[in-house]
């Protein structure tokens, strides 16, 4: 068992450290990749559990990438949670530390505009993909689809506090509709 835990922790550390380098535009953009690896490749979580994990992470205040802590916890308990969190945050934090010192007045450089125009569409595609993966992971039916589209429409036209949207959706779900 000890060997198993060690191997699992190593897998978690290596995978999430690598993933963090590809997480552009915030924690949510890497959700489909986490889903692919944790559900499809490693079978650490079922579809339903992944959807639940995502929902729980959304209900927790703080950065969106807190979802990796939950995945790590699910896979290997407390050590898994800590290893996964450190792997997801450590390398990029060190990178950010040195990048900040190297880049003076980054926004004024011509590269800023080019990078921005190049990266923003990619980030948008990734976020849309996250929505699709999360939506299909929680046993989708037409009422869940209606909640998704209804929330999207409402949040597009008026400012909605996320907790309010979640509370309404949770009640609809509790009512046996999802």
């Amino acid at each position, binding site marked *: 068992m000890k060997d198993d835990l060690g191997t699992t922790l190593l897998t978690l550390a290596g995978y999430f450290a690598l*993933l963090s*380098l*590809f*997480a*552009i*535009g*915030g924690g*949510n953009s890497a959700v*489909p*990749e986490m889903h*692919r690896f944790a559900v499809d490749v490693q079978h650490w979580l079922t579809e339903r559990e992944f959807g*639940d994990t995502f*929902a*729980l992470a*959304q209900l*927790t*205040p*703080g*950065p*969106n990438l*807190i979802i990796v802590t*939950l995945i790590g916890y699910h896979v290997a308990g407390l050590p898994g949670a800590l290893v996964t*969190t450190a792997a997801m*945050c450590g390398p*990029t*934090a060190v*990178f950010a530390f040195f990048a*900040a*010192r*190297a*880049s*003076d*007045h*980054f*926004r004024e450089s011509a590269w800023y505009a080019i*990078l921005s125009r*190049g990266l*923003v*569409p*990619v980030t*948008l*595609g*990734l976020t*849309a*993909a996250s929505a*699709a*993966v*999360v*939506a299909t*992971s929680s*046993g989708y039916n037409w009422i*869940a689809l209606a*909640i998704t589209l209804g929330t999207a429409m409402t949040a*597009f036209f008026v400012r909605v506090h*996320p907790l309010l*949207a*979640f509370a309404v*959706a949770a009640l609809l*779900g509790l009512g046996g509709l*999802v």
Partner: protein
Amino acid sequence: MTSSEPMTSSEPMNSPAPIQSPIGTETSPVTAPPHQAQPTLGEIFIAFAKISLSGFGGVLAWSRRMMVEERQWLTPDEFNETYALCSFLPGGNVLNFSVVVGSRFRGPLGSLVAFAGLMGPPVLLVLIIGAIYAHYGDLPALRRMLGGVAAAAAGLMLATVAKMARPLFHNRAVVGPVVALVTFAAIGLLHWPLPAVLLVIIPLSIALAWLRPPSGAA
């Protein structure tokens, strides 16, 4: 701390005194903003813990409110510039932001403390939530509620995408929307591995942006 201006100390503590701050003498490339004093490590920790615990569904709005409006550690321009840099760096944007701001005020130790403030409280919380889920996750009522929340969260993400996508369609631009759609299809529908997709699409997208300046740019 000495001021080059002959300012008397009768100045009220809470006024944003226009002192030419002589503080930023460290190797930090960006000089500290002109405010009364550098925040202490404890103040940095508390500020980022507050940002973290206030932020549901994204922490950007709260970090701006805290840094620019409440504590006045950064000017609006400094905030925008710092945040732009952090959103291009890999990893969580707010996480990078905490490291950069912490470092600006207190060096490596400041980074560490800001990071701990941002991540510590939510990690503790989410561990408690995870433990509860491990015990009660099979309750049908809980599952149904979480199903609803996941559906709503997907909806919120779609709304964000729709809002951010509007400028993309200005000037009948084609490249941006096509790149976004291809990325979406590869990751969201085909479930291809992220690194492989990004290693192709990012250089391509940046090259296209470099070769073709925005058509309507003045």
